[in-house]
């Protein structure tokens, strides 16, 4: 079975699982929504500086959502030791990893797509800049979080305090991507500022870390 088909099988399985219960999307969305609401009590962006701040708030909400998705995604695998069952199959470990990444990215994107309009409403904002370019930023930024997040979630799956450890590992590593997305989002909200350069940063980050994750995953998983 080809690499991509294996990966897509995992995606299909995760989507099907989630469609059945919708537990994850509900919980994750609700939590991220709470974050937005709480922040909107603190300020209503009027000036440009505050629009910039709002961009940060949005990505904090996305971060919470992302960690929630990752946690839940691996919980499903852990419940009946399905990770071991996956290791028993002849399927390549890195294909399984890519499948997990894509599934997680789809879930996170879904949450983000729902949160963005809510964000615009709560903070009374609109995109003055190039929205299409910003959508690219959204996808690239989501992938940046998910590719490392999935790797670290797999890493901490048998470790105590894993809910605490996952963000501790993910956030420092994601700093460049976070700077890029927050800046690009601010530029999109303000209608000024360089988005292109941050898109390039994100592409570089994504390429570097996707390569690293793929290279290392198989090495780490084989032979315990």
């Amino acid at each position, binding site marked *: *079975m080809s690499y991509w*088909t*294996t990966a897509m*099988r995992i995606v*299909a*399985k995760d989507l*099907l*699982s*989630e469609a*059945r*219960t919708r537990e994850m999307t509900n919980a994750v969305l609700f939590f991220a929504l709470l974050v937005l609401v709480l922040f909107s009590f603190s300020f209503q962006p009027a000036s440009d500086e505050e629009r910039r701040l709002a961009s940060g708030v949005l990505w904090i909400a996305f971060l919470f959502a992302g960690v929630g998705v990752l946690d839940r995604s691996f919980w*499903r695998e852990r*419940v*009946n*030791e*399905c990770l*071991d*069952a*996956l*290791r*028993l*199959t*002849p*399927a390549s470990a890195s294909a399984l990893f890519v499948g997990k990444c894509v599934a997680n990215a789809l879930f996170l994107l879904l949450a983000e797509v729902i949160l963005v309009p809510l964000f615009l409403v709560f903070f009374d904002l609109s995109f003055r800049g190039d929205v299409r370019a910003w959508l690219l930023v959204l996808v690239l930024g989501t992938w940046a979080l998910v590719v490392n997040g999935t790797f670290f979630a797999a890493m901490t799956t048998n470790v105590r305090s894993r809910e605490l450890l996952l963000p501790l590992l993910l956030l420092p590593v994601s700093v460049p991507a976070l700077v890029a997305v927050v800046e690009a989002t601010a530029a999109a909200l303000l209608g000024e500022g360089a988005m292109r350069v941050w898109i390039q940063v994100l592409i570089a980050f994504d390429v570097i870390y996707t390569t690293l994750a793929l290279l290392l995953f198989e090495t780490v998983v084989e*032979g*315990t």
Partner: protein
Amino acid sequence: MIEALDSKALVFEGVCKTFGETVALWQVSFALGPGELVALTGSNGAGKSTLLRVAAFLLKPTSGRVLVFGQSRPTPDVKRRIGLLGHASFLYEDLSAEENLKFYAALYALGREADERIACVLREVGAEDFRHRPVRTLSHGMRKRVSLARAMLSDPELLLLDEPFSGLDVASIERTRALMVEWRRRGKALLVATHQAELLDGIADGELVLDRGRVRSWRAPASCGSAVPPPVRERA
């Protein structure tokens, strides 16, 4: 000398497995050939589950050698020939039995025969009636059947069963025993771990008794004879 070790389904040569200071397995040696059923017995914590996981290549032995069909490394080909029924069900709770099997069938690259194979294993274990219900809603006995079906998906020649009888009623136990006999008849090698050794009376060809990780006794199947490898001496 050891003859025809390659013809054996599973060979353990002086296998030790330690986790830091804990010794899970120590100098375990035995061999299991096709068409043989070996009971793996011992009290809880004796190391039965660890042994099965090492045999399935989920764990690497700290020392010693494991050979499955003559191979010491889990190549995709070898993996297809091993079926493990673990302590946990290996099933996704929100999916139905059939969906679980379809998923695993894809990972085992069963291709076009997948549907046929799935129908076949479900029929064999008697899980056809509830194939469409989410695993979450199934009783313990039903789940065990589906897990067994999953283990049999790729029609493995080596079956490793960890406590297949636990939590089952008498009728289910009988059915499982009958399945084991049938699989053995088909030429599969079975290694069945249970702390209720009496349940395998009459169907086991051999018995490996573990005590705190060490082999307390090893009764080889009749055909085995001298083909059991001698334990490997530890280098001081």
